[in-house]
């Protein structure tokens, strides 16, 4: 209960932040919130089941592109709803074809998915509609976007917390350890995975949709940037993909680092990021929070 109170207080504090910061700082906060939401949504499925989804930007970009296409024809809330539905549909397609098989097929499919969606949209736009770039003219201030993103963060983390306490959470953790045992205990593997994956992917799509008005001009190459998938995974891994606050703990410092790197090393930052990623996989495979736990345990044991 106390934890919930603290979390809610923090949320309230974050909500009033826009009153006190500059335009630039607000932009940073939107970026941070975006990645916290992405990393948390990603970890909701991939954190416990160990099914690594490399398709974050496929869904994120789809959300953004949906807004780009529909923003002038439908009211904003409906557009967001459409984005969510399309994301869910995509997730179902991916999930139904790959989640009944071993994890490797899922990873491979998600690996190429963003590229596939980008190419399909490009082809469609070039060949059929003739408009490759699209404009988003929405009357949304940076504050509006920030608050919506904050809401998505709350939903992502809140959902994860709720799932962790539920049957679904137990099933996902069992699946992550040993699917054979999970199935023999009565868990319907495909349905469980599909459900969690769809929730995760829909959230990610919504994040993309909400973030898109910041771009104004949108093109497949811009919205389907592989760096998004990459950053999401490394942030979740760094903090601890199977911990409730892990993605947040990983996202905030990495986002700031990323911002600093892309400003100061615009050409070489992918190399640094890649090396960091490899370092995390080698040194902190279970994430920072698990590392802290280990340290605490070790200190606890050496106490007299």
């Amino acid at each position, binding site marked *: 209960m106390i934890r919930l109170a603290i979390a809610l207080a923090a949320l309230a504090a974050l909500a009033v932040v826009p009153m006190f910061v500059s335009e630039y700082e607000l932009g940073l906060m939107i970026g941070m919130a975006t990645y916290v939401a992405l990393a948390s949504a990603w970890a909701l499925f991939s954190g416990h089941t160990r099914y690594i989804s490399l398709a974050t930007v496929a869904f994120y970009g789809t959300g953004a592109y949906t807004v780009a296409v529909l923003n002038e024809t439908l009211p904003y809330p409906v557009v967001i709803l459409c984005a969510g539905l399309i994301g869910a549909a995509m997730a179902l397609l991916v999930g139904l074809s790959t989640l009944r098989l071993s*994890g490797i097929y899922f990873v*491979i499919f998600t690996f*190429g998915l963003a590229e596939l969606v980008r190419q399909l949209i490009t082809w469609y736009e070039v060949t059929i509609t003739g408009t490759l770039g699209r404009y988003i003219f929405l009357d949304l201030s940076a504050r509006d976007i920030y608050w919506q993103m904050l809401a998505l963060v709350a939903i992502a983390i809140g959902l994860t917390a709720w799932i962790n306490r539920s049957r679904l959470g137990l099933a996902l953790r069992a699946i992550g350890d040993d699917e054979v045992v999970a199935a023999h205990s009565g868990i319907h593997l495909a349905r469980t995975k599909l459900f969690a994956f769809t929730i995760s992917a829909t959230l990610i799509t919504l994040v993309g949709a909400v973030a898109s008005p910041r771009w104004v001009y949108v093109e497949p190459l811009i919205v389907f940037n592989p760096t998004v998938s*990459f950053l999401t995974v490394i942030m979740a891994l760094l903090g601890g993909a199977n911990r409730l606050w892990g993605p947040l703990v990983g996202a905030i410092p990495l986002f700031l680092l990323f911002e600093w790197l892309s400003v100061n090393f615009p050409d070489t930052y*992918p190399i640094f*990021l890649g090396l960091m990623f*490899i370092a995390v996989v080698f040194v902190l495979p279970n994430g920072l929070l698990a590392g802290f736990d280990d340290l605490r345990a070790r200190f606890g044991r050496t106490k007299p």
Partner: protein
Amino acid sequence: MTTLVLGLVLGGTYALLALGLTLQYGIARIMNLAYGEVTLLAAFVLVFLFQTAGLPPLFSILLIGPAGYLAGWLLYTVMMRPLVQRSQGIPGKLEVDSILATFGLLFVLQGIMLVLFGANFTSISYLDQGVDVFGVSVALNRLIAFAICLVAGLSLVVLLARSRWGLILRAVALTPGSAPLVGIDVNKVSRQGFALGTALASIGGASVAMYQTFSANDGVVFTMKALIIVIMGGVGNVAGALAAGFALGLVETFVATTFDPGLTLAATFTIFLAVLIWRPQGLFGRRQ
């Protein structure tokens, strides 16, 4: 007919690419997502050698192949071996770890290539006069690339099937648990398998550079196609990878000429989906 000839020629390259990956996954159990990047790197090196040192590509390929083997050998020792040791006895852990680690490697290599060679499209003009094959005019460089891939691919098949080294490689691929019991050093063989896969990727990439335009961002697509071919052919199944590679080349050429070149990846994915749903162990793989 045009489609058939061009498709087979393209398929030869794909088959070789897939072979390298199937070796890395089948023998070393490494799911290498940076595979396409290695291929591209070889392609860039070939172009670089051609443009700056004037080295004829065919000669460069003779250098690039062994260089690729060495690079793979080093990569395995430095990066993969610690992961292998860490995941001893835990099923599936090496796959997850290698996917993550090579995902990071992908970004590192892509970043290096972007810095060194830029994001522009690159190509060289070499031996591109047409040659008549069954009434279809095919560029000589494509034919040479096809020949190289064919030679490399068949050599590998023969090597695996007939030689002692090949037997050892296959033993580790099939039963890594029992191989040590007959005196096989699994670590050494895994490294060899991985390095061999890298060598094949390099040869494939260098061959492609002779006739294809490419850029530093193409890595993911190469990897994706190689992955799909490996799965279609059945993991670890060399003959299957070859056959699937040719099949993919044919389908892609067909789609590109009949419908639209922008839909080739979509066509590949559709086939992938179909194979996953219908026969997830691959067209030729064994059901476990």
